[in-house]
């Protein structure tokens, strides 16, 4: 099985809460699309595919995005306006390229969380109606129990996980502190003030056991990623960043996006989840093993989600991630640098798109002070198992095997 797609252009804004509160999603999008085209050395007329992630009211839906940005495309798509589809968007772009639906696909995430109508978990939030769906909210919300806001679902699952594997909650601090250190080296990050362990441990609980620094920062911003075939990408202005392997998002009775399989959220079954190690589709496609990954970016809306993503990506066994991240392993010079732009906790929560941009910058050696030395591969993954593996130019599928 092969994949022959590559990122040829990328651009983003800086990220911050309410940063674009007085702008429109389209206006911000126009800037990053122009910048991504310039980065790729492409003309606007060459874009013939468009996938929008996060539509109205926070962002602009694909139809108005195409018409107001003057894009004439022959392939367009837009998933449900939830963050979990970052990898899915890129996979669909790669598949569209593979079968000739398009030659250059623009993946566009331009939206303002400041326009969501209020905090997650509150009635004025534009997505509150989803909490009342048959089967409950997308993060397990049960409003009549007073159980709203996505972090509550993570908190409920995390309590089981920490109890089951006898993990001290204090170990979570390493994620917030490490990611903040990275963010101080990232001029685009929302949270650049250094964070101390004292500040972390003295911070307030939002939904116990999770503290405010275990929560991501919802930001306004935009990221544009242009994907094309590996052949076309060789003619780009910048070195291609190759998509070496991927795998899709899992769904079903035992999958809960804010937790890990086996923890028994609602009626999900209780069992001993076995992290799959290197025997996964993405590694087989890429001809790589987990140890070949030079940097990992994960969906870290709340810090426990990072532990579950690390385990599901095969970097350690179930229940071991909280110990695994200690002692510098995820630092800039560690064995597996993690969320190197600050992640959702400190760079800002734009559903993973800043982290995709970070992988491209790292693999082009454009990451400035936070550059991971000699990074050849980068991985994006979530606790639902969906993932992407990228390689810098010259690293072809199987090259490291």
């Amino acid at each position, binding site marked *: 099985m092969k994949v022959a797609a590559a990122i040829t252009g990328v651009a983003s804004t800086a990220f911050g809460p309410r940063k674009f509160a007085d702008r429109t999603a389209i206006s911000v999008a126009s800037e990053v699309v122009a910048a991504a085209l310039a980065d790729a050395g492409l003309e606007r007329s060459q874009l013939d595919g468009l996938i929008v992630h996060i539509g109205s009211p926070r962002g602009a839906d694909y139809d108005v995005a195409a018409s107001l940005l003057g894009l004439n495309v022959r392939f367009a798509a837009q998933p449900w306006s939830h963050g979990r589809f970052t990898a899915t968007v890129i996979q669909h772009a790669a598949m569209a390229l593979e079968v000739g639906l398009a030659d250059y696909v623009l993946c566009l995430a331009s939206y303002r969380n400041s326009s969501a109508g209020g*905090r*997650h*978990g*509150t*009635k004025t939030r534009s997505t509150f109606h989803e909490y*009342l*769906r*048959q*089967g*409950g909210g997308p993060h*397990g919300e*049960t*409003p*009549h*129990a*007073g*159980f*709203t*806001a996505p972090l*509550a679902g993570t*908190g*409920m*699952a995390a*309590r*089981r996980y920490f*109890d089951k594997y006898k993990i001290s909650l204090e170990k979570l601090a390493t994620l917030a502190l490490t990611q903040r250190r990275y963010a101080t080296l990232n001029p685009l990050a929302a949270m650049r003030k250094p964070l101390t362990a004292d500040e972390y441990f003295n911070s*307030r*609980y*939002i*939904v*116990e*056991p999770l503290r405010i620094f275990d929560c991501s920062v919802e930001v306004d911003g935009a990221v544009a990623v242009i994907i094309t075939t590996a052949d076309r990408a060789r003619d780009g202005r910048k070195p291609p960043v190759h998509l070496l392997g991927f795998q899709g998002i899992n769904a079903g*009775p035992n999958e809960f996006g804010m937790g890990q399989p086996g923890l*028994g*959220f*609602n*009626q999900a079954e209780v069992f001993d989840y076995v992290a799959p190690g290197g025997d996964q589709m993405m590694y087989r496609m890429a001809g790589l093993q987990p140890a070949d990954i030079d940097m990992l970016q994960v969906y870290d809306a709340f810090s426990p989600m990072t532990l579950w993503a690390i385990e599901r990506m095969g970097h350690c066994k179930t229940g071991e991630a909280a110990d695994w991240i200690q002692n510098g392993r995820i630092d800039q010079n560690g064995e597996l640098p993690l969320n190197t732009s600050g992640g959702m906790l400190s760079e800002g929560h734009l559903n993973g798109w800043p982290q995709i941009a970070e992988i491209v910058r790292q693999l082009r050696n454009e990451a400035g002070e936070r550059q991971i030395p000699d990074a050849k591969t980068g991985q994006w993954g979530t606790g639902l198992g969906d993932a992407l593996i990228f390689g810098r130019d010259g690293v072809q599928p199987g090259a490291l095997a």
Partner: protein
Amino acid sequence: MTLPIIERVFPGEPDDLLPAVTSDNEPYWTALARGELLTQSCTQCARLRFPVMPVCPYCGSTNTEWRALSGEGEVFSWVRYHRCFLQEFADLIPYVVITAQLDRGVRIIGRLLERDVIPVTGMPVTTILERWPGGRCVPVFSLSGAK
């Protein structure tokens, strides 16, 4: 198996916090309003399931019957809300929400009436129904009287 019902008083009418009554879940909500906690039992594989769903997730059968639960169970997991997200719960902050593991395997998320406790996994709880303005009841949990 009728469960105790307590009245819940709100400043307003919190109808928008309750899921719509549908052809699938109508027996569940109707039973709650008369003091019974029902769940579905698959007539093919005999497994219980919750929340209400039209197909057995374990065997695929659409044949079900309704079974009443005793409401006895234990704390499976819990969180404590320190921030108010819903005005209807503002006066209760900080409050605890638990996942209760009920008898016969069903797990339900609900508020714990006791606010000043540190729950422990495995602690026994009993189900109480809270009647909301408009007449519908929702399950909440209590440590007192639990077996």
